[in-house]
């Protein structure tokens, strides 16, 4: 059975990449958004770009991994295509994993381009890319499963975007992208610790700008934990909705 599931996960992810993610408008929008952000900060406060870079990469990963993911699953549920996948000899978690991996690959593709651009642009050592890519992989996994969770919790595509923004925008303000966590009031610092973007920014900051430490390992562990939590919740909600 696990062989069927693995095969199904692969083909669903490839099909989603082909049918949805790798369409030129998605790629260009995915690239344009972070490019515009970086350009804005580069012009306004060029000196701060170095400290902002990890946050901008993490934010790019957040938006690219959640946006399409939430739309794709909600859209397929609406037209009945998700049920078509569930009729195949695959388990429900395998179908969902295939959808999530599509989101991870797209998020990774877009944010990795930004990551490489930032590394080259800021003159950072290329070896830092290896650890940063690992942080980016776990970040996109957490964000893609968040997108899946959002998409199974709603009925309509526009509701998915609204609910995704409900999580995304507070994360941008509290996750250490623009304001360091230490500068936040204590209560908000506690809240920030409940958000996956916080750990993504921390891990990327450590891998790109300083040194990898035990805290970085904890950050990566937290991202893996969020991935599992969101995935389990999404699977349970989808099963309930199917029943």
């Amino acid at each position, binding site marked *: *059975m696990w062989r*069927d599931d693995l*095969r*199904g996960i692969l*083909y*669903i992810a490839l*099909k989603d990449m*082909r*049918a*949805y993610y790798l369409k030129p408008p998605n790629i260009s929008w995915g690239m344009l958004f972070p490019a515009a952000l970086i350009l804005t900060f580069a012009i306004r406060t060029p000196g701060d770009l170095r400290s902002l870079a990890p946050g901008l990469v993490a934010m790019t990963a957040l938006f690219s991994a959640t946006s399409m993911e939430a739309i794709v699953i909600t859209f397929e549920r609406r*037209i*009945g*295509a998700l*049920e*078509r*996948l*569930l*009729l*195949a*000899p*695959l*388990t429900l978690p395998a179908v969902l994993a295939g959808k999530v991996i599509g989101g991870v690959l797209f998020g990774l593709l877009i944010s990795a381009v930004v990551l490489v651009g930032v590394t080259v642009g800021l003159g950072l050592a290329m070896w830092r890319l290896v650890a940063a890519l690992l942080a980016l992989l776990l970040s996109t996994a957490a964000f893609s499963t968040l997108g899946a969770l959002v998409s199974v919790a709603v009925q309509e595509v526009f509701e998915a975007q609204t609910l995704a923004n409900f999580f995304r925008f507070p994360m941008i303000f509290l996750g250490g992208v623009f304001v360091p966590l230490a500068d936040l009031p204590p209560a908000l610092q506690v809240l920030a610790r409940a958000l996956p973007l916080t750990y993504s920014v921390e891990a990327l900051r450590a891998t790109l700008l300083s040194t990898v430490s035990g805290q970085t390992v904890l950050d990566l562990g937290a991202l893996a934990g969020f991935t599992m939590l969101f995935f389990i919740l999404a699977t349970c909600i989808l099963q309930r909705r*199917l*029943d």
Partner: protein
Amino acid sequence: MNIAIETEDLTKTYGPLTAVDHISFEVQEGEVFAFLGPNGAGKTTTLRLLTGLARPTAGNARVLGLDLRRELPRIKKQVGVVPERSNLYDELSARDNLIFMGQLYGVPRAERARRADELLHRFRLEEKKDVPFAHLSRGMKRALTIAAALIHRPRLLFLDEPTVGLDVVSARGLRALIEQLREAGVTIFLTTHYLEEAERLADRVALIVGGRIVALDTVDGLKSRVSGEATVEARLASPFGEERLRFRGEDVASAVRVALDHAAAEGKRVIAVNTIQPTLEEAFIKLTGLSVEVMLAERGNR
């Protein structure tokens, strides 16, 4: 003959609503079995339970000898499902949709390409093989959805309202295909609210109303349950021309007597009297207590 589907007290509730209410039935391997009933009768819910899309609240079923609750992935490998909605991928071409389904069902690479081309040929979609699903006509979409359900050569095919929304020609083609599949030994479980479809295609029909099976028999068996009421058609001649009228009685003799009495009372000459076989429609009305208008109303809703 082996049993393809066997349900035992299969039940599905949604809060206070019981969609499928302790239904038990068997489908023999190789037969065409129809679930006939109006909208909301529990047809699609039963199909969703048997294909693993929803989990039963109570009861269980065995499909192709496998336990529905414990061996679902093995069941899915051997069954094909044609949902009511043609729900393949708009962005993929006709051929790529079939290839993708072959991938999901584990059809080997060389075989799935060959099988996809074979099905495109069989469904007369060869010229449309590179056309995205979104750009196909409704009939073509339906045909491709059925082709997709056959990519892995299933032993059992579930068809949910297969001809809804199809034009007359496409519907006729689909019925011919069902006949071919039956001849090839594929067991077919179809849900429908078209009486004529069930009558024409099914070896046996289960009438389902309110989540319960109210009757299950061959079409002839269901019709015979209307016995006790015979119908005759009399051709009567009057000074104004010829007319055909139907008369009912407890049996043929009494129905003929009613016809003759009517002719005498009206001063008309009887040209001929023919017995009329009860239709499935009459059986449906008698056995379910519903009117055919209920079924017709459902057509309007779609």
